[in-house]
Structure formats: C-alpha cells, structure tokens
C-alpha cells in the first residue's frame, strides 16, 4: 500500500508489520515455492498474489470496520450485508431463476448490477447507524439484529436457492485483472486510498477519533457526533456490500447461507491486530496488514497441506499472540517479569488485568 505514513502511524503499525514479515519469513524457509510468481494470460499467479487476492474481501470490510471501531462501535452485520448485496446482484442478473426460469432475459448493465446492491448495503448500514446513534442501542446488540435478520433477508431474495449466473462484465470484479493485478486487489488499493483521502486529508479522521475517545467532550466542542457515527456505519455497510459483490462475482453465484459467513469476525480481528484502538486512534495501514496476516495464515496452512479444519485454531493462536503483544498491560507484565530487582510473583498477579 502506498499510504503515506507519518511518524506516529508508522509506530502504530510496526507490530503487525513485523508479524506479517515473520509469517512470510517462515514460508520462505519452510514452504517451497511460496514466493514463486508466474504470469499466465497477462496475470500474476502465486501464493503471494493469492494472499492479496483471497484477502481482498476481508481487507475491504475491515477498512470499513476500522472507522466504526474507532468511534467506539462495532458492526457484526457485515457478513450478512455481504450476503444481501450478493443476492441482490444475482437476482438482478437472473430474476427468473428462483421461480425455475433458466432464461436470462436482457442482462442489466454492469454499473447497475454494482450500484444497486451497494445502495441496498448502504441502507443496511444506515439502519445500523440509526439504531446506534438515534435509538442509543449498544452497537454490539444493534448490529446483531441485522447479523441475524440480514441472512434471512438474503435468503428471501434468493428464495433459498443458490443463484448461479454468467455475466462477463460483472465477473471481472471477482476474477478479472487490471495491469497484471487481480481486480479485487486493485479495488482494495482504490478503496484504501479513497478512505485515506476522505478521512486524513479532511478533518473527518480527527473527528472520528475525537468522538470515539470522548463523545461528551466532542459534543461540547460542536462536533456532530451523531452524524459522524451514522456516516461510519453507512460507510461500513457499503464496504461490506462491495466485498459481497467481489465474492459473488468470483464464484458466479449467490449463496445466501455461506456468502460472508463469519467474515465479521475476521474483519474485527484484522482491525484489532492492526492496532486500532476501540474508541480512539485508528490506522488504515495497520488494518490492511491485519487482514493480510489472517489471510497469509490461511494460505500458509493450505499450501503446507494441513487439514483446513485446523485453520481456525491457528488463526486463534496468531490473533491471541498479536493482541497480547499490543496490550500495554502485557508489556508491563513482561517488563516486571524481567526486572529481577523487583521480582515478586504477587505483583504480576495483581497487574494481570488484561484490558
């Protein structure tokens, strides 16, 4: 990512960067052929490209999640919103499929197939935002509603079917390439840069952090915290919608049951590994690295022939280690442990409250 890093954000991402490099180093030493790259049909292939390509949906949702998380919120519904947007796109391409008609009719233009699901996703985000800001429901509860209901809505759209389709222009979103790079990766770069400029070149980022860090004080300064929170939930919804479109375009089908399933957890993990503070400082670069770490573990495990069922366990170990390293209390504990002068077991027990 060509994000311009100032001194402070550089310090913030040094942990996740090191973790990512460590995983790559491990593969360099122990996984043969991991760094091999080849060009087929004008597109790059290889495990490294695969990490970026497969990780793209999580990276995109995690970017949206970062802002929500920085305002002191959370969005559990992103996985379901992905399913909704995918279902809407597939339904638009093949509206008759669910009633047994296999003919396509006239294919809608690709901009419609992208724009309308994104609008639906934005409305889903708006719903979350209204629940959180105007009805003052705790974010974890408010978004849980759509997490559960959203998948149901997606199933209503597909009538429980997996709508498979062909739409060449739309498929580019999932499997096309642009300047040799997979389109999903290009989309990640575009969205990350767009967010960087929207939040860091305007005062939006500062206001988001202020609202997250101290909502009352922000209100007293005259920041419209409601509007800002509403905005980040809408934005998060759009990001989720986009990720849903990428996956749907890639597999050329909308599966309401499985599209984006558990993605919210990967996205939240990516944000936390990346070093964003809940209600406070956020870092987009850190989030991208967090998502890459998660994806690179998956790819490593797959390319080493370990049973995919174990992926979740390894993921858990890595997420735990990185978050422990970033915890200030943990660092204090380690320092105390090595501080022989004041080495006392009880002191560790007392300061062992993990935030």
């Amino acid at each position, binding site marked *: 990512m060509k994000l311009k890093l*100032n*001194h*402070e954000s550089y310090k913030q991402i040094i942990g996740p960067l090191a973790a990512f490099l460590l995983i790559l180093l491990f593969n360099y030493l122990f996984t043969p052929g991991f760094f091999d790259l080849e060009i087929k049909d004008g597109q790059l292939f290889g495990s490294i490209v695969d990490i970026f390509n497969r990780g793209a949906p999580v990276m995109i949702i995690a970017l949206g999640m970062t802002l929500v998380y920085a305002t002191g919120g959370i969005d559990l519904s992103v996985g379901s919103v992905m399913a909704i947007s995918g279902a809407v796109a597939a339904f638009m391409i093949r509206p008759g499929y669910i009633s047994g008609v296999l003919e396509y009719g006239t294919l809608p233009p690709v901009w419609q197939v992208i724009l309308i699901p994104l609008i639906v996703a934005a409305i889903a985000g708006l719903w979350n935002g209204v629940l959180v800001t105007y009805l003052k429901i705790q974010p974890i509860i408010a978004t849980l509603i759509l997490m559960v209901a959203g998948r149901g809505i997606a199933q209503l759209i597909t009538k429980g079917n997996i709508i498979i389709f062909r739409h060449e222009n739309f498929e580019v979103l999932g499997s096309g390439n642009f300047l040799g790079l997979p389109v999903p990766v290009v989309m990640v770069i575009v969205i990350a840069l767009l967010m960087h400029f929207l939040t860091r*070149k*305007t*005062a*939006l980022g*500062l*206001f988001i*952090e*202020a609202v*997250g*860090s*101290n909502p*009352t*004080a*922000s*209100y*007293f*300064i*005259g*920041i*419209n915290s409601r509007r800002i929170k509403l905005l980040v939930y809408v934005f998060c919804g759009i990001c989720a919608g986009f990720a849903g479109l990428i996956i749907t375009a890639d597999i050329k089908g909308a599966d309401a049951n499985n599209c984006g399933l558990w993605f919210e957890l990967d996205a939240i993990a990516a944000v936390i590994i990346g070093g964003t*503070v809940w*209600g*406070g*400082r956020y870092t987009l670069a850190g989030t991208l690295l967090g998502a890459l770490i998660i994806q690179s573990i998956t790819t490593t495990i797959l390319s080493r022939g370990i049973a995919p069922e174990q992926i979740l366990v390894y993921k858990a170990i890595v997420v735990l280690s990185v978050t422990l390293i970033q915890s200030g209390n943990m660092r204090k504990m380690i320092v*105390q442990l090595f501080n022989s002068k*004041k080495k*006392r077991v*009880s*002191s560790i027990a*007392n*300061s062992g409250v993990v935030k």
Partner: protein
Amino acid sequence: MNIITPVLQARNISKIFPGVIALNEVNFNLLPGEIHGLMGENGAGKSTLIKCLTGVYSPDEGDVIYCDNRVFFSSPLESSKAGISTVYQEVNLIPTLSVAENICAGRQPLKKGIINWTFINAHAKELLAMLDVDIDVSASLSEYSTAIQQMVAIARGLDLEARVLILDEPTSSLDEEEARKLFAVIRKLKNDGMGIIFISHFLDQVYEICDRLTVLRNGEYIGEYEIGELSKHELIIKMLGKDLAQFEYRSSKNTVNKKSDKKTFYRVKGLSKRNGVLPFDLDLREGEVLGLGGLLGSGRTEIARLLFGIDKPTTGNASVWGLSGFIKNPKQAVDKSFGFCPEDRKVEGLIPDLTIRENIILALQVKHGLFKYLSVKKQKEIADMYIKLLKIKTPSSEVSVSKLSGGNQQKVIVARWLAANPKFLILDEPTRGIDVGAKVEIQKMILEFKDQGMSILFISSELDEVVRCSDRIAVLRDRHKIAELCGDDISSSTIMYTIANANTNASANTNANVSVNCNSGGQNEAEVES
C-alpha cells in the same frame, strides 16, 4: 523532644517519563499525627510522588519506607490494604452504582460469601455522617451533585483503620462550608494519630490546616518547613522560584470600562431549566467580562450550559446577534463564534487519545468545518504557540494529552478555545486545580482578550478572582439570579452581602426577584419584582 519515626517516607525517589524527569531525588517524611502539605505548581511532581508512594507507579530510583519497612507496592490496592488510603484529585467513582456501593466497593464485608447489604449501607451512612452529609446511600451516585460526589470520594478514602490518608485536591469542588466540615474530620483523624498528606492550591486552606510543608518545584525537592517558619509570600517564591511581584497586573481595571454603552449581542429573557435554574434575564455585551458570583450549586454551570445550547431551556426566549431564538446545540454556538471551557475537564473537555496538538486545534477545526483541514504544519505552529503562551509543561506537542498533569490539561483546554478565537467565551472554573502562577496568567489573558473585544462569561468558586476580572457580576443564590452588580459595587463584600441579604427575601417570598440594574452612569437602583 523525642524523635518520632515517620510513618511514611520517601528517600531519594526519582521517576522518569519519556522526555520528562517527573521526580528527581525527592525526599518526603510524613509523621504520624500530622497534616503535611505537599506544595508545588502544576507539573511540580506532587501527583507523581503520591502515585509512587501508593504503588500506581514504581519509582525508578529510591525507596519508599512505610512503618520502618522498605516496601514495593505494585498497585494501589496493595497500598490501601497496607493502610494507605488515597483520595485522588479526579473523582474516580462509578456513577451508576449506589453511594454505599461506591464507598465499599472492593472491600465489601462478606458473610459466608454473601455481601452484607445492611452492614454496607449502615457503614456508608456512618462515614458520610462524619462529614455531615446526610443522603440516601442506596440512591445511585449520579443523582448527586459534584460536591456530594467529592464528599463520597473522601468518605471512601476515610478508612478508619488506615495509618496514612492522602488527599489530593480534596476541596477543589467543595464550597467553604463543606471544606470546613472536611477539615474538622481531618483534624479529628490527625488527633487519632493518622498521618495525613494534604495537597491543595488554596493557600489559605493549607495554612489553616497543615502542620508542616514539603515544597517541590519541577520535580526537584526544595525543602521541608514548619508551617510557622514560612510566610505565604516566601512559600510562593519557593514554589515558583521567583517573586510574585513579576505577576503584578492592573487591579483597578474595573473603573476603566465602567460605562455600559457596549452593544448587547446575546440577550436572554426568563430563561429557565427545570431542576437547573429559575428564570433569569441576562444581557451579554461585546468586550465585557461578565462574572457569575455565587456559591457552589447556585446555578452557575447551569446558566453556562443553557447559554451554550448544551441543555434545552424549559421557558424563556433569547436573541443572538439580533436573531431571536435559542442556541439549540453546541454546534450552533460554535458557528456563532462562541466557546465553552467546561468545568469537568476529564469528562467534558479532554480527548484523551489525541495528542496535545490535536486537542488544541480541535475547536478551530470544527469552526473551519470538515473539509478545510488545517495542515499538520499549521496545527503544530498553533499548538506550539499556545504551549509557549500558557507555559504548558510538555516535551512536545505530539505527546498524548493524557500524559499531562491535571493543571496542564486544563491549560490545553483553555488553549483550545483561545485558538478558535471566539467572540464570546464561557470559562467555567478555568483556574480550578491550577497553580498560582498559571492562575494569574489566565486572569491576565482574560483581561487581554477582553481588551481585544472578546466577551467573556467568567465562572469561578474563588470570589476574589471573579471580582478582579469582571466588569459586571450576576449574583446567584440557590439557582436564582438575585442581582447584578457593576462598577464600584464589585467587591467580595458586596457579593457576600447580596447573597446573605437575598436569604431573607427568598425565605419571605420564594419568587422575589431583587435586581440591581446597571445604568450607564453607574448608578444603581434596586427594584423588587414579584
């Protein structure tokens, strides 16, 4: 005279934070049965020393000796179990719990593993009774005022078994009467043999209650003195390292701008808020300092909040810059070039995760709007300017604001609003918890900005301060604006007299509204409305 061994002792303690030496070989001796004042400016290291003594921080060098033993407390819990009770400067209570729960939290008496509620409530009531506070201890803490909350915090620290009691700015939100009650309790504890560390910016209180003083300056140990051997003037010189005469400023300014031919830009009529403040009229004029005089809980903050659009008024009407209508929220107020420096800096002022620079430019940025983002370079310039101007003690503007001492944090919030260059600035207790030098600086600044045409609403618990700075003073009593003073009438005694006098009026007729009008000639005529 036999030598008493100190109950708590700090020997050559040093504590270094990145970029700042907070304490440099500081000594401190607390004898049993004494009240020991810990004196120093903001950032002198008072709070850091306390935190080293109670185990919040571990000192980088030096020893803490407690009851003749070298101790290493690794948490405040350990030190409080050992018998050192601490009441911190900022009230650290849980608003949603009941008063009794707040007092007993963390050391609830258990009966067969079950909390003994009857005992807790009785115990809490007993402790509060010592402070002459009689409230329903089972009600949640948030229902009570800041002053009561402060008393609850003190009651929490008042562990009768303790051998050491540390009070960090315990009186900063108490009025005189409440402080007096607290002092009576402190003296009683002292006579029982408890060692008490007392930190306060109120010199009068320090001289009233302390036996000995330890002075710190910039993290250095200056000395330990018997209270009798050091005059107030000498103490200030020791704290500041220079003579207070340098801070002399015009005190006769009240006579300069006496005429009220200034334009009124903000007028409210019959403004009130249920459970907040009774209907009042107020004219705010350009280039004038309006002081709000009154005791704690008299409705000062409530008026400020109404004027800034934080609270919605129940009745009344208002006009601002010629347009009628209330200010509905702080955003509108900021758009009208108003500023509000709130009383509770921790909850309502600071953005703890952000740097000093970001905290300072935030209000200016809001004024500029979302899209006209100030460049980081420009932000730095502004922040550095105010750090220098207000003498904020920090290695750089890029430090997180939460790392500053309380007084310096207050200065950051004042800087925030000065940077926004408002036309009307509300200062609610801007000098609370701030050292003498900075207090004078802020007062001086108030007068300077007034001369440049800024209007200021000034609220302070220190009557002298209000008297010194204000051109006009609205006197409040029991949520009621009872009078308006200006010109030569402005003095502490007039205010006290007005408040005392209104007492009889108010008891005779609760709706009595005595107002003293300020005419251009400075003549006053009293009229009684009903």
